[in-house]
């Protein structure tokens, strides 16, 4: 192993959180190195307009995603089962390479609701302790919505998020989401143009007394220059967004929002195709001395640094802490330990509507974040008392694509092949729409992450093991939501509506979402969290953790808006407080 000269900051992973951390800390004058296990990637070469729109290569063969041969997890539904490796990623698809999953995300960019943050005390206050599901381990966040608001705002501005405010400093705005937390400012760019499905949803939802509004999206609707001075071009609704890189500079990503200015800073260095294997600790176990990494030629390097930032994506942040022996592994039998605790996911389901032959949806003209939403059944917007479950979901009618390998619909009962299949496919094509939902996923005692006893990665280190299932509370919530999606679909004029209820057990094969939350949650005490409210590790104060692994439980929204806000929240603390007293905990345990 060769030892390299010391840096002020080493960042593990150069995706969404890593690139933001790197840029802000390099701007603050620190010497920063980011170590990324995938290749360098940029728009002109890797997401070229002549190669990017390729369904087989990207969506089916998963060319730019993390390859399981490099790293995967093992999975099971309950602690008494034997976990087996996820040999092919399906349910979620982690990123790999510069830009991380920020390259091929869908861009739905949400703020959680204020009551998502004080979730436990809010629910107990409103419904009583006995209303919480059995074995629920939900807990309050150590930060409030009000504290995060300026950071949500800045992340949205860096991305150029398109949308319409519903609540400007307490004043309800027509056309926006009346249930959202207050916003200090309007969205940076106006909403995307609606397609037919969004127009029908808007009308139907309004008729049903709901409050539809455009999906806040990381597809900029107009030419835009972000606060870093990086310029973006308007989205062209190409229909190759989620699972693809954007050739148009329209989808917010590290490539389109941060890297062009980050790379100009000479006190920043990126090292690609280099995988961090371990965070190194001083003998006292209380200070990180840097990281060890292996480059693609198999050489091992030690990179010393004063500050270590884990930005390797939710799941891999947790695994790196485990492999580095930082923190105490959670044990579901005793409920003791915090690392790996409170793993949660997302509970998505919806209804499919078949329309008559004169309704031409043209979903091929779509964008990752082209959608019309309603939040009337999200969070605790509605009274849960009569329903007997907690949590909720946003209702969504999106037009993202009509890519034909995956997005083909036939009526129920149609054969999967042959002449009848062809006829039904042609008759149905372009005449269906979906009303979906992004549902909350709360934490439970027996849903957690730890190291697998059997399966190893190519370097011989244990894979992480995921134990997860959808619980009755979530399934019940989702059944209620799917019934609501069906009502909207009916009101949109569908001649046939098929409800697709969420069913357990959780299956690793069909894509659901890459919204893996928890495992290194933030909290007020070391007893129920891995890091403090500034995302600083309780045991090793010069290690900070980013990403959705910080969430104590997941809300009825996609995570990245909150991940971005937390990144800027942590940066604020690092720049303005930590660096004045480096190595010291900012919260006394």
């Amino acid at each position, binding site marked *: 192993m060769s030892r390299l000269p010391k840096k002020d900051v080493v960042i593990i992973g150069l995706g969404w959180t890593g690139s933001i951390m790197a840029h802000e800390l390099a701007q603050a004058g620190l010497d920063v190195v980011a170590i990324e296990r*995938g*290749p360098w990637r*940029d728009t*002109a*070469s*890797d997401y*070229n307009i002549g*190669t990017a*729109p*390729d369904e*087989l290569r990207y969506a089916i*063969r998963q060319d730019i995603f993390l*390859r*399981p*041969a490099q790293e995967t997890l093992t*999975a*099971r*539904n309950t602690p008494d*089962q034997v976990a*087996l*490796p*996820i*040999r*092919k990623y399906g349910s979620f698809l982690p990123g790999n*390479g510069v830009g991380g999953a920020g390259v091929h995300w869908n861009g739905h960019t949400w703020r959680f609701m204020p009551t998502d943050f004080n979730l436990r005390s809010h629910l107990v206050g409103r419904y009583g302790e006995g209303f919480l599901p059995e074995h629920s381990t939900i807990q309050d966040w150590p930060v409030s919505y009000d504290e995060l608001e300026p950071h949500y705002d800045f992340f949205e501005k860096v991305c150029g998020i398109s949308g319409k405010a519903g609540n400007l400093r307490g004043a309800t705005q027509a056309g926006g989401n009346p249930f959202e937390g207050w916003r200090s400012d309007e969205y940076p760019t106006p909403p995307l143009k*609606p397609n*037919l499905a969004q*127009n029908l949803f808007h009308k139907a939802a309004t008729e049903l007394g709901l409050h539809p509004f455009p999906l806040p999206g990381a597809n900029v609707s107009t030419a835009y220059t972000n606060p870093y001075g990086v310029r973006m071009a308007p989205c*062209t*609704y*190409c229909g190759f967004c989620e699972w693809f890189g954007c*050739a148009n500079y329209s989808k917010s990503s590290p490539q389109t929002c941060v890297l*062009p200015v980050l*790379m100009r800073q000479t006190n*920043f260095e990126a*090292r690609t*195709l280099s995988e961090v294997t371990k965070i190194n600790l001083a003998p006292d176990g209380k200070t990180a001395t840097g990281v060890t990494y292996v*480059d*693609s*030629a198999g050489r091992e390097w030690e990179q010393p640094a004063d500050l270590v930032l884990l930005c390797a994506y939710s799941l891999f942040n947790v695994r790196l802490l485990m492999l580095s022996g930082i923190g105490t592994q959670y044990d579901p039998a005793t409920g003791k330990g915090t690392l790996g605790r409170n793993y949660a996911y997302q509970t998505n389901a919806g209804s499919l509507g078949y329309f008559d032959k004169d309704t031409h949806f*043209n979903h*091929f003209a*779509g964008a990752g974040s082209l959608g019309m939403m309603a939040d009337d059944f999200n969070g605790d917007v509605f009274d849960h008392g009569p329903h007997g479950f907690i949590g909720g979901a946003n209702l969504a009618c999106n037009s993202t694509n*009509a890519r*034909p*390998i995956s997005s*083909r619909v036939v009526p129920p009962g149609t054969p*999967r*092949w*042959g*002449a009848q299949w*062809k006829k039904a496919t*042609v008759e149905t*094509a*372009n005449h269906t729409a979906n009303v979906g939902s992004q549902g909350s996923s709360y934490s439970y005692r027996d849903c957690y992450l730890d190291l697998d006893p*059997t399966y*190893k990665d190519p370097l011989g280190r244990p894979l992480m093991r995921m134990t997860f299932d959808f619980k009755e509370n979530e399934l019940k919530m989702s059944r209620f939501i799917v019934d609501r999606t069906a009502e909207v679909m009916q009101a949109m004029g569908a001649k046939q509506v098929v409800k697709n209820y969420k069913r357990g*057990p959780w*299956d*690793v094969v069909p894509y659901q979402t890459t919204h893996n939350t928890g495992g290194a949650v933030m909290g007020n005490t070391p007893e129920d969290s891995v890091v403090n409210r500034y995302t600083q590790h309780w045991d090793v104060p010069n290690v900070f953790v980013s990403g959705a692994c910080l969430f104590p439980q997941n809300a009825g929204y996609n995570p990245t808006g909150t991940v971005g806000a937390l990144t800027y929240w942590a940066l604020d603390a690092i720049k303005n407080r930590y660096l004045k007293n480096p190595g010291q905990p900012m919260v006394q345990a």
Partner: protein
Amino acid sequence: MPALTRRHLLSATALVAFSSSALGRSLTGSLPWQPNEAYPPQLVRPGGWYFLTADEAAMVDAIVTRFIPADDLSPSGKDAGCTVFIDRQLAGPYGTYEWLYMKGPFSANPLPTQGIQSPLVPQQQYRQGLAALAAHCRDQFGGKRFEQLTGDEQDGVLRAMEKNELQLGQLKRPLLDAKMFFDLLLQNTMEGFFADPVYGGNRDMVGWKMVGFPGTRYDFRDVLANPGQVYNKPPVSIIGRPAWNGRPA
């Protein structure tokens, strides 16, 4: 490594995906941008078989033609190039599951929620599955080959596979059974019929024309300007469209 572009690295290692062949590097001071650097897929041209034997290809031709029979909606799966597509996919990294996690131990009793748990990669699944299917036909249809059966007989065999009512020789779950093999064949056929024609199937975009998919035009602001209208423009693929090459659309 200023002198060495990734394109170099790519060509030096032929078909190996660039992310596994390139070397780690240090980048600072500017975006490491190189003119004309892009990573197009290799254009598949029909002619010869890269993985399948001639006998296997004849069988796959017959199968993809039952999956996608010729009628006024489209030419057959065979004429659309599905067999060529499957052959070339099997010859590439997909055929060996090069990118997947294939370390043992392989469980004898995986949960239904645990996805792929067979040690057999697609090349082996096709080789062993087609051999077992050929043997089955020989036994059941008086020595005939699958492609010599009538269309109805072929459909009957495929339907039995789909329902897992046919035993593929010694093969069984979790290794491979009739339903698993059927699902793989159907999935790969549909991929071939609907993937970009650069991969050898969907010849002249017949699959896209059938479902009205306009392909890779990449700018549909005209559609959003007027939602709900019938869209009539012909499809475009990443290799263009026939009219651009002097052939009728």
